[in-house]
């Protein structure tokens, strides 16, 4: 099981182009399909991960590992998701840097970037809609929507730091719910 955790996150880590938010969808598919974690619990973990410093993807990996197998699980999942980046960055730093201007490398990234955008859109909808099956227009959902819109305007218009937005939302949450 420990090995499995490591391998799953190794796999996620090696395709985690685009960093955190793009990967949430990937992780969710992988761990809920495996039946490791219920979708509801997954959302709680991501909320916790978002509150902590560091990449939301790595933090989610840590929390999933921890929820499965305690400290050893946390270490295995974190190591798994970070190891591929480490290896690839070392490879890049040693010789890939010269290939940066290469036409085909550019063409590949031209195609890869929109895919990453798609992943992030999927994550937003999936994470936002949450537990499907329930009626959509309920008081809690409306509250969430309000906080969500407030956050968007605060960060976009008033250049609020994302972490400040998260803290404020926690306060709003206490007030509304």
């Amino acid at each position, binding site marked *: 099981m420990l090995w499995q955790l490591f391998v799953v996150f190794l*796999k996620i880590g090696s395709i985690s182009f685009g960093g955190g938010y793009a990967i949430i969808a990937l992780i969710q598919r992988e761990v809920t399909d495996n039946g490791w974690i219920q979708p509801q619990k997954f959302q709680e973990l*991501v909320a916790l991960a978002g509150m902590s410093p560091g990449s939301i993807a790595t933090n989610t990996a840590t929390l999933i590992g921890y929820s499965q197998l305690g400290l050893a699980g946390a270490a295995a999942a974190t190591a798994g998701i970070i190891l591929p980046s480490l290896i690839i960055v070392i490879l890049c730093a040693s010789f890939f840097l010269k290939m940066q201007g290469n036409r*085909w490398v550019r063409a*590949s990234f031209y195609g890869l970037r929109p895919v990453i955008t798609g992943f992030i859109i999927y994550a937003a909808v999936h994470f936002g809609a949450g537990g499907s099956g329930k009626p959509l227009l309920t008081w809690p959902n409306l509250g969430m929507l309000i906080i969500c819109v407030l*956050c968007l305007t605060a960060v976009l218009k008033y250049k609020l730091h994302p972490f400040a937005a998260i803290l404020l939302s926690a306060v709003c949450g206490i007030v509304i*719910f």
Partner: protein
Amino acid sequence: MKMKHREYLNKLVQLFVVFLKLGPSTFGGGYAMITAIEREVVEKKSWLKQDEVGDMVSVAGSAPGGVAVNSAAYIGYRLAGTAGAVIAVTGITLPTLLIVLILSVFGTMYKDVPKVAAALKGVHAAVVALIILAAYRVGRSSIFDSATLVITGLTVLVLFFTSLNSVYLILGGPAAGVAVIIIKHALGISAVTEKDVKDNQLEINYPEYYI
């Protein structure tokens, strides 16, 4: 010879300490970190020259994984080889790992307290907002012609309506990109693979681009 060995060890320890200190400040992650790393590594320690920071950002941004962790790996490697990379990454990850675990322990302990549950719900909404924001920002620099728009659309459709393994999508993106460029080339249409350079620089000013 012995001196050299000691110098090397000393450097490893310094790397570890610097990135251990940088770790907890990675709130918001991504490009926000680059400024902090720059201050520490270029200005204070002079480990890296200013013009190498650009290389670092482009490698860290295009490799899979978070920008902050990738930057740590890059600097560690440049200074002390593979061992340096491992040490730097361990340093930057360790504090967050501990903070996440502590939060999670408290989170589960007080999960049933109504106030805590309410706060978590608020955070949930904020995370949704931040993801939408990330999508908007990444989309603005990656979708600039019909081909990229179609690729994004297809990706979303595939994700929602099939259970196709995401690995194929990640591999399919570059393949589609290369194919489009080849076809455009064959048809004699000029092919642009990046949005304006000006826009690329803008990305660096957006700290939440990657988290």
